[in-house]
C-alpha cells in the first residue's frame, strides 16, 4: 500500500513540474467549454441540465486521455527507468497501480476544474444536482477505463506516438460497438447472443445510462471490471516486453 503511494506521489508531481499538466488541463477546459457552448448551443437549448456537457466527454477523452496514458510505460521503457523502478522493492502490481492511479487522479483534477459550468447551471436554473453528481462520477469512471486501456497499450511499445494511436483506435472501437449502425452490421454476420455480448461491452451505453441519471451498480461494476481487466493485462504485457 505504502509503495503504491510512493509511486503515486512521484508520478502526480511529475505532471506539474513540467508544462504537460498545465497544457493538458488548459486544453481540456477550453475544448470542454467550446464543445458545450458552440457545438451544441447549450445556452440556446434553455435546459438546466449538463447532459450535453457530459456527452461530449466521450469524444474529448478519446483524444485527450491517450495523450496522458501514452507516456506511462513507453517512456519508462525508452529511458530505461523501468529497470530502476522494477528493481526497487516493489511488486509489479504496485508499480502498475501506482502509475495508473496517479494518471487517473490527474484526470480527476482536470475534470473537477470544470466546476464553473456547474455553478453556472445552478445560477441560471434549477438542475437536478443528483444527476450532475452521478454524471461526474460516470465521467471519472469513463476516463479511468480509457486510461487503463492506454496504460496497457503504452507498455506494448517504447514509441509514444504508436502508443497514442493504438489507444485511440482501441478506445474508438469500445465506443463504436455501442452504436446502432455498428450493431446492425454485426447482427448480419454474428449470432444474436454474441452481438448482445459485444454491445454490453460498449462504453457508450454504460456511460449513457449513468449520465441520464440512472446510477446503477452494474454500470459502475462494468467500469471497475474493465479497468481491472486492462490493468492485469498491463502487468502481463510489461512482464513479456521488459526483456526487449
Amino acid at each position, binding site marked *: 500500500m505504502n509503495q503504491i503511494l510512493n509511486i503515486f506521489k512521484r508520478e502526480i508531481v511529475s505532471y506539474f513540474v513540467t508544462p504537460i499538466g498545465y497544457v493538458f488541463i488548459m486544453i481540456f477546459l477550453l475544448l470542454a467549454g467550446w464543445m458545450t457552448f458552440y457545438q451544441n448551443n447549450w445556452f440556446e437549448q434553455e435546459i438546466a441540465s449538463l447532459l450535453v456537457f457530459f456527452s461530449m466527454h466521450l469524444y474529448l477523452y478519446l483524444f485527450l486521455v491517450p495523450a496522458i496514458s501514452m507516456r506511462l510505460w513507453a517512456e519508462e521503457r525508452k529511458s*530505461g*527507468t523501468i*529497470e*530502476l523502478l*522494477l528493481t526497487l*522493492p516493489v511488486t509489479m502490481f504496485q508499480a502498475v497501480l501506482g502509475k495508473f492511479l496517479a494518471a487517473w487522479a490527474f484526470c480527476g483534477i482536470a475534470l473537477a476544474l470544470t466546476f464553473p459550468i456547474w455553478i453556472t447551471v445552478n445560477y441560471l436554473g434549477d438542475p437536478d444536482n443528483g444527476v450532475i453528481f452521478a454524471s461526474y462520477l460516470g465521467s471519472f469512471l469513463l476516463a479511468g477505463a480509457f486510461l487503463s486501456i492506454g496504460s496497457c497499450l503504452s507498455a506494448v511499445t517504447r514509441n509514444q506516438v504508436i502508443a497514442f494511436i493504438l489507444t485511440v483506435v482501441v478506445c474508438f472501437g469500445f465506443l463504436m460497438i455501442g452504436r446502432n449502425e455498428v450493431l446492425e452490421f454485426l447482427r448480419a454476420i454474428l449470432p444474436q447472443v454474441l452481438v448482445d455480448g459485444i454491445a454490453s461491452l460498449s462504453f457508450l451505453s454504460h456511460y449513457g445510462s449513468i449520465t441520464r441519471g440512472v446510477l446503477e451498480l452494474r454500470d459502475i461494476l462494468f467500469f471497475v471490471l474493465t479497468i481491472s481487466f486492462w490493468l492485469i493485462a498491463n502487468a502481463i504485457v510489461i512482464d513479456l516486453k521488459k526483456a526487449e
Partner: protein
Amino acid sequence: MIEINNLSKYFGSLVAVDQLTFDVPEGQVLGFLGPNGAGKSTTMKMITGFLAPSSGQIRVAGFDVESDPVSAKSVIGYLPEGAPGYGEMTPSQFLNFIADARGLTGDHRRKRIQTVVDQLHMSKVIHQSLETLSKGFRRRVGLAQALLHDPAVLILDEPTDGLDPNQKHEVRQLISDLAEDKIVIVSTHILEEVEAVCDRAIIIAQGKLLADDTPDALCAKSHYHQAIRLSMPEAASLLPIIEPLDGVSRVDVLDEGRQLMIVPHPGVALYRQISALIEEHHWPIDGFSVERGRLDEVFRQITGEVAT
C-alpha cells in the same frame, strides 16, 4: 552471499546466458568481464530480479530472487546500464523518491542522503533537473541511488562509463572503500578497472563462464607474464646473445630498436639470467622491468577461443 546455480536465459532461440554457476562471498569485489553481448547485463538483470531466469536459481543474502523478489531487491543496490533516471526530477527529488521506496525514514534517511551526496560530490547540482546534467553527473546520481540504503549487495553495470579520468579514479576509490563488508559486482570492459578494484574476475562470452580467478592469476596466463623489458641504445644488437638463451621463447624489438621485450617460456623466470648478463657485459641500460602480464591479451586469448 550470492549463490548462482545453473543460471540460463534464452531469448527465443538465442542463448544469452548459458548454465552459469558461481558464488560470491561477502567482502568480495567481483569484476564481470566479457565482450559486448556476452550476457553480462542479462546476468545482472536476473540477479536484481528485473528479468526472470529461463532456468536455474539465484539466491541473494539467502533470499530466492524468484520466489521472494521483494526481500531480495531490498538488500540490493543496482545501477542499471546507462544510469537511467527520471529526467524531470532533480537529484534531490530523485533521491527522496528512492528513499521513500527503500523505506528510509527520519534521521537515518537525512544522514544517508547527505552521505551519498557528499560521497559522490554532487551538492552543486542537487537542485538541477536530471535531464540538464552532464553524463558524468547523471552517472553519479545513478550511483548515489544505488548506495542510498547502504545495501549489502551492490550490482553496478558499467559504473565508470562516461566519466572523466579523475571521476573514474574517485568511483574506483569509492568501490574499494565500500567493499569491506559488502558484495560488489561490477561489469566493465575496461580491463585496468578490474586490476584496480576487483579481488576476482569472471570472464564470460556468449553466455558461458570461461575464466574465474583473481586478476593476478589471470595476468599470469599472459604470454607476457614475467617477460623482461630492456631499454638501451642499440638494444637490437643484443639479439644474437639473448635469443639463444635457455628459457627464451622469443624476443620482440620495440621502439625502433631501442627496446627489447624478452618473452620467456611459460613458468620460466629470466630475471637473474638477464641481469647477470648485464653485469658481465656492462651494457649501458636505461631501463629494466619485469612485466606482470597483460590482462587484455588474456582476455582476447580466452574470449577469442569461443568466437572462432
